[in-house]
């Protein structure tokens, strides 16, 4: 096509809207992160303080005690990494199972896909009240019929419960993508595997798994991007508690700005959240790419 530069006229409106709603606010957040600005203290004028907010977050004022940021960071990593591992392992196994030609398998696929489309607030509230509740939920009732006293899982094991719920919600997405990969494997390949006498383990893990590496990569990358952002589920199930034991970085940003009204510190936390996300995506992308070229 030798037409002149009509590219911009198609692209520019979208760029402007996206930039105004995402890039400009992000630059503002960067600026906020260098200010001393507390909404609850109108008596203190807004002042440029350089990197002080970052230093305040990262420093160890009373040394043996670890500042909140590090525990929150650690919890975010644990939550995201565990959910991703669970989603990948069980998502793959389930996809292999659903790849069988069996009457009604489409119904099963559809049912398993369901939780992915359920809004996080409903996921949290439903599990919390109808299942994990110690007196009214299924867990409480079943525990009592089996003869032991149910403990409140959400306050004793907040992180494992949230990991479980994240996985419940996101595994369907992994199945969706991995299954698409498995079904893209040509039939003559599976036929020749059968003729060559490969057993189930060999054909699944040594032939099929490498073949769908690309799909696995997509699932893990997108899963990472979306799970790191997750906020609603934590708010409605544990509200970050007990104490700060189920805080994640997004949750801490939210608490810092809307509870502590500390705009400067919240800005710095938000910037570090972005940095951590990008770093994680980068590391993951590289490690997976390296693995891929090895084949």
């Amino acid at each position, binding site marked *: 096509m030798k037409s002149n530069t009509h590219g911009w006229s198609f692209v520019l409106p979208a760029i402007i809207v996206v930039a105004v709603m995402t890039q400009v606010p992000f630059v503002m957040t960067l600026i906020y992160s260098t200010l001393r600005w507390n909404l609850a203290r109108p008596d203190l004028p807004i002042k440029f303080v350089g990197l002080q907010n970052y230093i305040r977050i990262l420093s160890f004022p009373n040394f043996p005690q670890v500042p909140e940021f590090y525990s929150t960071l650690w919890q975010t990593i644990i939550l995201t990494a565990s959910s991703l591992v669970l989603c990948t392992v069980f998502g793959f196994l389930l996809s292999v199972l659903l790849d069988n030609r069996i009457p009604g398998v489409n119904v099963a696929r559809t049912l398993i896909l369901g939780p992915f489309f359920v809004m996080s607030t409903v996921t949290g509230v439903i599990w919390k009240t109808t299942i994990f509740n110690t007196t009214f939920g299924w867990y409480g009732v079943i525990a009592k019929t089996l003869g032991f006293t149910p403990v409140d899982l959400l306050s004793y094991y907040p992180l494992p419960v949230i990991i479980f719920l994240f996985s419940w919600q996101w595994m369907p997405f992994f199945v969706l993508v991995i299954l698409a990969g498995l079904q893209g494997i040509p039939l003559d390949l599976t036929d020749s595997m059968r003729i060559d006498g490969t057993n189930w383990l060999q054909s699944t893990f040594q032939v099929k798994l490498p073949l769908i590496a690309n799909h696995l990569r997509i699932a893990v990358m997108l899963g990472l991007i979306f799970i790191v952002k997750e906020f609603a589920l934590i708010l409605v199930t544990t509200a970050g508690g007990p104490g700060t034991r189920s805080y994640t970085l997004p949750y801490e940003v939210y608490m810092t700005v809307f509870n502590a009204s500390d705009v400067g510190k919240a800005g710095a936390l938000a910037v570090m*959240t972005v940095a951590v996300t990008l770093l994680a995506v980068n590391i993951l992308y590289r490690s997976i790419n390296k693995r891929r070229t090895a084949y």
Partner: protein
Amino acid sequence: MTQSPTIQQVQRSMAVRQFFRTTGLALVIYLIAIVYFSPILYMFLSGFKTEFQAVSPRLFFVPTLKTFQKVLGDPSMWRYLRNSILQVVLGTFFCLALGVPAAFGLVFGKFKKRGTNEKIFVWFITTILLPPVAVIIPLYTWFQAFNLQKTPIGLLLAYVGFHIPIVVWMLHSFFEDVPVEVMEAAQIDGCSPFHQLVRIAVPLVRTGIMSAGLLVAVFIWNEFFLAFNLTSIATATLPVYMSRFSEQQGMFVAQLSASSTIAVLPAIILGWMTQKALVKGLTLGAVKG
């Protein structure tokens, strides 16, 4: 006197073994699927209970529509529902109206410098990585300053800005599948760039547009963080309404279930309708991106 089995016997025993294998596998798969889906299923069921029936978990009961009547008779429920529908319909519309031309322009448009379209595409992708917390503080202060919480326009703008990149990313690969020759032929026949988009490209990628639109619709319908922080009572959407139930420990289970069902059903149905196209859009978009 041992007799070696005939061909028919061997075939029969193999068929029998195959039958049992398939049945066993099928049972395992059905069981997993039902257990996996059971929290949602139980939620659907509990919506048809009375509050009294819902106190203790049980599966068998006389269904009633009373709870649904009560939930739908609540004017505030309608307000949240209306706000949600408004955001989804307008949000999806504007995302497509801006995102489809953008994706088209990135694939077929010409820029002065070579590689500009590649750069813009990567820029769109990186905005998908940006977590909403990175922008919430300035957005919140702007919304306060311009009183945008009181109108649906503010949240709508945020949704459009946040979801256009997903449309661009998904449709990019669909447009790339359109042969360049088709567009060139259209151009030689005197078709303007705008008509190339509307008359030729859009009809060719309509499955992609459908799936991108449905995905964005589901995302907007379920979105919580922005809605929670950037709306007032008058403009809040269903996810915000549902989050209020988190404090009522085990109370009003039937009402909770009925409301949840209303909040969840549209997204699940839309999602199920779009699953095939979704796979294509997601995997193609990512393999090439």
